[in-house]
């Protein structure tokens, strides 16, 4: 940067004697501050009621404070154990003390549930020992093993030694179907025990199916609308937007009416004699993909439409005048020009369908459970909030990666509605 040096005398000066350069800079800074001042209230609101709660979700997913809070003495004592054989007497004594306190404060059940998540049998072990805790006398090692044989198995102590800090990643391991061996090495759960990976994979597969279906249906109608006179295409846009405004529940209910065994489609097909038995269209993948495609189609059609509107029709004519047949002209000239629209619409549909909950819950079967439903099950049925959070963080990660790609390719400031 070798700008010609300007001596102070020849610099342009504003009315109040400040050099113009500085004055402009000041005005610029003032403008920036004002711009930020306008954004700040909303930013704070979103930070407080949207970002913080998600951070909180992240904290819950690694929260293990229940173990050090209740087994106060044991988690400290077990630090001294080298992990070989059985822990020393001091650890047993600490455990006996914790059991007595846990019984008295009625907190032992909570930690029993927590450790049972790591190894089944732990709940019974802690609760039955707590019941006998008053009668335990030194030496505690023998007393505890006598109270419950499991205290003589190193596996239970190894779990406690691993999970003695207030932070744990075991929910993430569980949510990714990973197990931890006694020596700390990580292994994949065998196929028949792995459930979560399958559901995450299925969520992505369903989203891909919906995206492809939306593309196959959205592309022709976007092409039609882009090439019709404005008056007709405006009318058709209203038809595309109509489902967008109608309640998700109304649309899902409508698909139940159509697809159920006594539904309109099955009745019609039976009436004209195509089938004897009703086709299973609901509570399975067909129902989920059809209903979700219907709901998400506008998100694909609108970006495609706006891209196609900008394509010069003479390009296609030029292609045919140079001897391309219609198929060639379409694939070599038209399609490459619409890639931006396909990318924008496809990513948006994919992002939105990854987090879908209502539609799969109402028209899907047990074989179509998606990641969002898994969070609900862990939250409200299993009452394992940490696990629900861990699954949530993984799902959020997937969404954020897709959102970052979208931002790179399309740009959020180019996102348009209607």
């Amino acid at each position, binding site marked *: 940067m070798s700008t010609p040096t300007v001596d102070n005398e020849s610099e342009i000066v504003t009315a109040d004697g400040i050099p113009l350069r500085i004055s402009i800079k000041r005005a610029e800074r003032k*403008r920036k501050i*004002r*711009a930020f*001042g*306008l*954004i700040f*209230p*909303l*930013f704070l*609101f*979103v930070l407080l*009621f*949207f*970002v913080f*709660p*998600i951070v909180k*979700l992240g904290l*819950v997913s690694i929260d293990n404070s229940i173990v050090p809070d209740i087994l106060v003495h044991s988690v400290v004592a077990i630090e001294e154990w080298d992990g070989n054989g059985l822990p020393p007497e001091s650890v047993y004594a600490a455990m006996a003390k914790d059991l007595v306190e846990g019984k008295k404060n009625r907190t032992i059940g909570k930690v029993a549930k927590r450790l049972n998540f790591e190894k089944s049998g732990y709940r019974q072990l802690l609760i039955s020992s707590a019941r006998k805790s008053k009668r335990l006398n030194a030496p505690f090692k023998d007393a505890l093993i006598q109270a419950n044989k499991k205290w003589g198995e190193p596996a239970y102590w190894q779990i406690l030694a691993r999970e003695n800090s207030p932070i744990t990643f075991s929910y993430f391991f569980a949510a990714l179907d990973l197990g931890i061996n006694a020596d700390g090495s990580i292994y994949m759960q065998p196929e028949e025990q792995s459930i979560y990976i399958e559901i995450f994979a299925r969520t992505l597969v369903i989203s891909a199916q919906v995206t492809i279906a939306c593309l196959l*249906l959205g592309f*022709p109608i976007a092409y*039609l609308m882009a*090439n019709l006179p404005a008056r007709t295409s405006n009318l*058709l846009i*209203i*038809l595309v*937007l*109509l*489902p967008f*405004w*109608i*309640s998700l*529940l*109304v*649309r899902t*209910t409508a698909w*139940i*009416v*159509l697809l*159920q065994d*006594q*539904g*309109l489609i099955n009745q019609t097909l039976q009436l004209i004699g195509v089938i004897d038995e009703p086709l299973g269209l609901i509570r399975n993948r067909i129902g989920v993909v059809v209903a979700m495609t*219907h709901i998400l*189609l506008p998100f694909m059609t609108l970006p495609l439409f706006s891209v196609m509107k900008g394509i010069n029709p003479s390009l296609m004519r030029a292609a045919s005048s140079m001897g391309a047949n219609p198929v060639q002209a379409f694939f070599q000239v038209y399609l490459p020009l619409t890639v931006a629209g396909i990318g924008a619409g496809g990513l948006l549909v994919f*992002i939105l369908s*990854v*987090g879908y909950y*209502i539609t799969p819950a109402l028209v899907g079967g047990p074989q179509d459970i998606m990641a969002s439903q898994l*969070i*609900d099950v862990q*939250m409200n049925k299993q009452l394992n909030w940490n696990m629900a*959070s861990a699954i*949530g963080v993984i799902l*959020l990660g997937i*969404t954020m990666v897709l*959102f970052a790609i979208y931002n790179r390719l399309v740009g959020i*400031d180019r996102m*348009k*509605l*209607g």
Partner: protein
Amino acid sequence: MRGLPPYAGKLETTWYYGFRIFCALIFIFLVAPILVILPLSFNSLPYFTYPIEGFSWRWYYDFFNMCPTDQVVADFTAQFESGTISDNPCPKTSTNRWLNSVNNSIIVAVCSSIVACTLGTVAALGLSRGKFPGKSLVQAILISPMIVPLVITAVGLFFFYSSIDPGLRNFLEITGINSVTQFLFGGDIGVTNNLIGLIIAHATLGVPFVVITVTATLVSFDHNLVRASLSLGASQVRTFFSVTMPLVMPGIVSGGLFAFITSFDEVILVLFLAAPEDRTLPRQMFSGIREQLSPTIAAAATLLVILAIALMTSLELLRRRNERLRGMSPG
């Protein structure tokens, strides 16, 4: 697609009509399912299937929890006695579940879209004032409520609300705000199991829509108008209300409508955050679909379709007015 040229061959003609028929089928796919549900709300039998046996308003009476006129009761009774309908002719329930849920939905949707519109418009004005460091990150954060799966937002807010609620209630108790709100609303203020928590949550969902639509309006906004107004001696506030706001109003209104419909249609946050007595209309429909499919759901759906068409029409009229004002379209 500008009509078929006279020299079109057989293949071209087939393709031309074939393509149009295919597109027509897609439009039928888009619109027909919505139409299918409407007649079911007039079914005289309590089934959710076709064919419809007879015409009846009974599900609307159920929805509005009204006792029909004597004539209607007499008609129902006659139908009941002749065996056309098989259950209680005038279902009047003591708890007004459907109307109560409509009430809650309207309160939540109106309040949350007002919050989203106010904060969103001001922020969009800031965003349009040019670049500042971290702008794209701020923008991404403001848009993210639209992208993040709702279940995640719901669970996060559930944890967040239950962690701040005791402190908040305590604070309100000590500062005496509690007694004021109790006097005004006849209840405690908190964020869990409360419409206020739901309003805040829905407002965050509405924010991206307002930001996007208002920013889009501001792209074509002439900032010289603001300068002119200021140079003529109007204050910042006056300039905003008499120059900026009327011009960006279409953006605010359409963003507000999007925020309203988003809140009015939202179920998942309600499932996680609302108390049973704070059910909204979609929540009531959701449990209705899960538990038993009664045609009252179809009646509710019909009313929602009417609402959607009304909102869409107003948005379309707004768009046309806006285009006319800017001279973008001949008429």
